[in-house]
């Protein structure tokens, strides 16, 4: 039992290492391209930057499939926080930055962030099907504390 526990810990670390090994270079490449896009004011660099992130996301899904796992709670939380932070930063930039910067950034970055969200949603629909993908966001039903709500015929999932 203890050995199994240790083995699962090692497996989790290995998977985590692989996921990080995929994301770290992708984020660096995305940063370089984003930097180029910002300095050059050319939209293709932004496309490249967001493509790097999307590719890393695809690689992450492949890792999940190969290792027969899903996104861990930590990964979901981290991903959500980063996406929300980026969106907030994006909105603040639009509100506070000079007009020239806003004009340059609003469309490519906005589309890029939107594309990321769409991509996540599409991948969830493909992985779980429309109903279960929607249920992932159905917090209200999860918050129903009555025991009866756990029953399957009443729609309980826990």
């Amino acid at each position, binding site marked *: 039992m203890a050995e199994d526990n240790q083995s699962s810990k090692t497996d989790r670390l290995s998977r985590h*290492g692989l996921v*990080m090994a995929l994301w770290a*270079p992708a984020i660096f490449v995305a940063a370089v391209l984003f930097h180029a896009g910002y300095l050059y004011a050319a939209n293709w660099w932004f496309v490249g930057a967001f493509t790097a992130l999307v590719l890393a996301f695809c690689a992450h899904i492949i890792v999940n499939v190969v290792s027969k796992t899903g996104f861990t709670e930590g990964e979901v939380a981290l991903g959500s926080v980063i996406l929300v932070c980026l969106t907030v930063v994006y909105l603040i930039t639009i509100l506070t930055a000079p007009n020239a910067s806003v004009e340059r950034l609003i469309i490519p970055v906005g589309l890029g962030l939107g594309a990321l969200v769409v991509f996540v949603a599409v991948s969830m629909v493909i992985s779980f099907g429309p109903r279960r993908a929607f249920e992932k966001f159905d917090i209200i039903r999860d918050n129903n504390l009555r025991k009866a709500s756990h029953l399957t015929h009443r729609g309980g999932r826990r």
Partner: protein
Amino acid sequence: MTFLLLITLSLLFVYALYFAAQTARIQSSPKDFLDGGMTLPGWSVMFILPAIGVAALGVERHFLLVANYGLQASHVAVGLITVAIAAVMLWNRLWVATRLAGLCTPGEAIGRYYNSIALRVIFMGLCILFALPYSANLLSQAALLLQQATSGTIPREMGVWIFAVSMAIPAIIGGWRAVVLVLAMEALLIAILIPGITLFGEIVLTGDIFPTQPMPVEDGVFWDRIPGVLQGYAGFGKSVPVGGIFTAVAISSTGISLVGIVLSPATLYLGQTTLKGNAFGIGAVWLTSGLAAGIMLLVVPVLAARMPAGLFSHAESLAAVVPLAGVSVILLGVMGALFAISFFVTGGALLVFRELVHTYLYPNLTDKGQRLGARISLGFGFFLLGLMAAFMPYVSAVFASVALPLALQLLPAMVGFTFMRWISRGAVLAGIALGSLLVVFTEPLGLIIFEGLFVDLPWGRWPLTIHSAGWGLAINLLIVFLSSVATLRGPDMYQRSRFHRAMKAHPPASAKRSGLLWGLAILWGFLAYGPGAVLGNFFFSDPIFTDLKSVMGVPSLWVWQMLFWLFGVVLVWWVSYSVGFGRTQEVTGKPMRIGMPRATRSPDWISSGLSRVVNRGGDASADDPNQTSVRLLLPDLESKEPAVKPGRGKTRYG
């Protein structure tokens, strides 16, 4: 650029530290620190193998050679396919032998198979050679690049210590597994950076260079072709070769020298400590011969043509456009070196600890004691590395030049261990001795010492354009074959046969496929980087079967390289999947014992020496009969097993 570069390097350090801490947290047994529990994830080895191959070429060094010599220097990268073949075959058999006979390190495997302490010492010597001068040379170059990139804000010596400490801390905390996990990420980053920087440079920088324009090399250098099969020149420092150094024989011998990195103890240890699965095959076929060799052959000439003055000048030109892109170029150069340093120093320190300290000095260490000892060894290793890199860069460079060729001299020993039972211990030792001598005297190490002490030699480095590894291996193989014929019925043949019979129970292959495979491999080698490679000079531009001239817009040699790179991938695929070396499966059955059993006490001369140092006040062991060391004689360990008569207290031999 300085600020961005430092931030990026700091993030790398934080990444390594994070994984070191994570690994340290989950390690249930302290012994896992040394070998990752022999269950390193396959994906990490898949990523690391191609980067090890590229490290053998040397990222910055290879770029400079290609920038100075053109496609003839780039052709050496075909050797990565040989690296892939060697790695997949040797790793597979060593992996099986490790599980079959309970072997912990490559030195132990070879030492116990041949029943030779001398071979274990040679392995330890190689560990030190790769961990200290070889790595110190790389570290010195990386620190020099950092000094240039920061405009002297971080001097070379300071850079050396910053890098040494930043690599030492994660290794000391997390051990072998943590280092391997971090190196896998760095390998992937290197694989992305080379094509990424090339593509970026082609988009943002002005001016057409290679392949639309000739590569900017010096006058008299044939940038687009191989300057003959062989040249009668005396060697570097004595005369100048016509058209460039990289003749077909120079390319083949340099390509084969890359196999030395597979035979380095740390690389063998990596293969030994991997989890079962398909990692060897995927790493060798798709990532090493496919991706790495492809990038080095197709992409690097384009990149190198833009950096005739080295990485730093290219980084400056990119940084002028996008600063972070300039940082990427420096990062590529620095990380190419740090990858190899971290790998060889960590692996070397762990192996020296296991081979020397744990086997001979303190054989009864507890698991926690072993972990502590390994941590101290790692600390010492990185400290000595820093010392050498900071204060002895030239000595390091001279010794570094012999690391790969000397490691290659172990090829007959490994082939004997893995495939050919008729290769005997005496033959292997004689071959290594003479081969190493030839290596040393065709490299600066031997030349400088001999010419400084005695008289000038008539040859220089790499005479006749043959790499020192080629000289050494040729005489080594000759000696091994001749000596093995004479020792076919030697007294240790029984043990070797027993071992190989047990290995055959876990076969990777069918003999028929192997025969055809070797025939194709020799043909491929002859045309890809052997004498037949000179056909590629004009084969596609001036075809021999017609008077017409083809206009491709790219040099014929480049097309030849692409063609034989693709054939090479097929060859490695065959070795890995069709023959089956790319997979490892559970080894079942009763474990076998080869060679002398593991000593539970130190040899008497070591323990008495230790007790003299430790017990200055007197010999404490004299009063305690349990502490008295066992009388073991070195020559007897190497040749005969002692027959002890119970109760007589005497030892008889024979």
